[in-house]
């Protein structure tokens, strides 16, 4: 089934929900609205602070808070994998009864109990970055997230366009790598699958046979996993045992070492940096299709930006965490003031050496 579907379905569903949710939110917001915006106090729970992506989001949160004159407090677990810690943080905030909570859930299901608690306590929640599709009705009033599946597809489109000629002219099967830091969170898996599906789709349209190999989850999740023996293009997916740069790098270097690799995709900052780490030794990345391996990344940060400038990385997809953070607080503010809100989709942008300084891209390239 198309993994894009939930994202698309979610929008109308959420708007429907917004209506009944309205009275709860107005109730919750009532005292706050009386007390003027100065007394509003929002709590933001991010997935972690590890990557600069989240730093940018926090920056956006703080900017909005300053503009609107509300109090915010951000917290997040040590690592995106510390699900239990995040749940503890969330319940802790709920127990403190703030005016609203912004949540980037590490795991979709783990937060459900807490969201129920929030609903019972009349605290409005806005999800950002990743949604909580199964949240109890009326607890999450708005979800502000990128369509990760689409963002992954964007990377595939750009990479395919660059590799098209080499693929067409190849006499033997060629290989495309993909490094995902894990196979559990919705955002990463959607990106990974989006990339695989789109790439297969484009290649199949050009009459090539595609096979997906490697990590079982992604192989099984792909629309068409193909047959390795007869394929012209092999998409090899690797997932390290843990989310650390050095393990991502080992996996990347195992793929990049193969002689038939044309391109590789790292589906978030850590994975992309892992690919660049591996390249330190292999020195195979570049921007000339056919001669070098073309690497597509995800997110920004100094390392990736530098690599794109240096022509080591072909390009990357960026989201706009800063805007996302800002919107989150603004949405919470609206809820507190009794406005009705709905889901907001943010965009993923492809950037490479040519458009890095363009006015619509540059602000999203955080350090």
């Amino acid at each position, binding site marked *: 089934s198309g993994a894009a579907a939930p994202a698309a379905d979610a929008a109308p569903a959420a708007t429907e929900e917004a209506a009944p949710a309205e009275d709860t939110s107005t109730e919750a917001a009532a005292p706050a609205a009386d007390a003027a915006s100065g007394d509003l106090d929002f709590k933001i729970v991010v997935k*972690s*602070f*590890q*990557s*600069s992506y989240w*730093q940018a989001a926090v920056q956006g949160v703080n900017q909005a808070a300053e503009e609107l004159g509300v109090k915010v407090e951000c917290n*997040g*677990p*040590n*690592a995106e994998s*510390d699900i239990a810690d995040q749940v503890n943080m969330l319940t802790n905030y709920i127990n403190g009864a703030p005016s609203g909570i912004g949540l980037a859930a590490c795991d979709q299901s783990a937060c459900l109990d807490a969201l129920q608690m929030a609903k019972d306590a009349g605290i409005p929640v806005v999800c950002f970055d990743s949604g909580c599709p199964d949240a109890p009705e009326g607890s999450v009033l708005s979800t502000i997230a990128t369509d990760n599946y689409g963002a992954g597809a964007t990377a595939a489109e750009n990479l395919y366009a660059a590799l098209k000629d080499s693929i067409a002219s190849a006499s033997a099967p060629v290989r495309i790598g993909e490094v995902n830091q894990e196979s559990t969170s919705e955002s990463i898996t959607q990106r990974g699958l989006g990339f695989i599906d789109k790439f297969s789709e484009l290649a199949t349209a050009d009459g090539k046979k595609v096979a997906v190999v*490697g*990590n*079982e989850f992604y192989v099984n999740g792909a629309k068409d996993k193909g047959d390795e023996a007869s394929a012209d293009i092999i998409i090899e997916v*690797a*997932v*390290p*045992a*843990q989310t*650390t*740069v*050095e*393990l991502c*790098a*080992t*996996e990347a*270097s*195992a793929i990049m*070492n*193969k*002689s038939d690799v044309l391109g590789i995709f790292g589906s978030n900052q*850590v994975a992309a*940096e892992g690919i*660049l*780490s*591996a390249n*330190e*030794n*292999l*020195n195979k990345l570049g921007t000339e299709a056919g001669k070098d391996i073309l690497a597509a990344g995800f997110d920004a*940060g*100094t*390392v990736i930006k*530098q690599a794109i400038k*240096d022509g080591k990385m072909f390009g990357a997809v960026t989201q706009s965490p800063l805007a996302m953070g800002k919107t989150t607080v603004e949405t919470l503010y609206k809820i507190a003031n009794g406005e009705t809100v709905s889901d907001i989709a943010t965009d993923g942008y492809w950037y490479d050496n040519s458009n890095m300084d363009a006015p619509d891209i540059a602000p999203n390239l955080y350090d």
Partner: protein
Amino acid sequence: MEKKKVPAKIFKQEVIVFLVVIALLIFFCVASQDFRKYTTILTIMDYSYYIVLMAIGVAFPLITGGVDLSIGTGLVCYSLAGGYLIMFKGWPTGLAMIVSILFGLAIGTLNGILIGVMDLPPFLGTLCTCMITRGLGSICSKNTGISWPTTGQPGSWFRSIFKYETAGGTKIPLGFIWVLLLAVIMHFVLNHTKIGRYTIAIGSNKEAAILSGINVKFYHIMAYTISGLFAALASIAYSAVFKTVLPGTGAGFELEAIGGAIIGGVSATGGAGSIIGTFIGVFVICLLKTGLPFIGLQANWQQIVTGLVLIGSVMVDIIKKRREAKK
């Protein structure tokens, strides 16, 4: 006759481990053609530096009969602290490196005081500093992942300490020479200086060492200080090899280092050990870590294999000892 016996006994383990390393190398070369490349050597080296350095350091607490569990999180903590100063405070790389090293020395000495002076059980004392350094690391870096200057940026000279790029673009794993040199130096320290001699004495019979009038507290602290120092050196190696250091990570590194040391013949109960053996032992672990992806093993299988190899190597040692005891 007796004279020959002693060194023979010590070197046995090293030779066996060395043969294991060779066997693994051959196995991977045969099993995967991609493995048979110069770049693979570079990759293996990259992974080995920080573990080797930690292992050399931790061998000293291990030989005193203790252990240092704080080196993994410590490594990340020192690296985050140094990197933060470069990235956000604009410090020159050299100065930041010195700060990292001093930080490592401080935590190492703290461990030494907890264990050598305050008599805390080593497992516990360093478990505490493990938690503390994990927390401190995140606090030092304000919770952000930190990148030390990457190649091309100003201040990235320290990366070429470990990997030198010739004019022709060939990369030379220079770091191997440094860690080997350090291993040889520490081998000398362990076997031919007071620090080493007393480290062994503490591990073998602390009471006797005290009654011999040795300042046991001082030398006990020294063992942990060395461990801290090498964890700090490892943090520099780690920062030089990898792009980014993430707060909250590092737990688990110490196990690889300790595993390497024990595979290399450091007695898990203290009193005996070899630094050169440790050095070789680490490569068993590094080879598995880098080699297994090449033979197409998924990451989850790699973990199982690594676990089994670890048990296996210790079992071989145990069976060997049992046989010897029977004779």
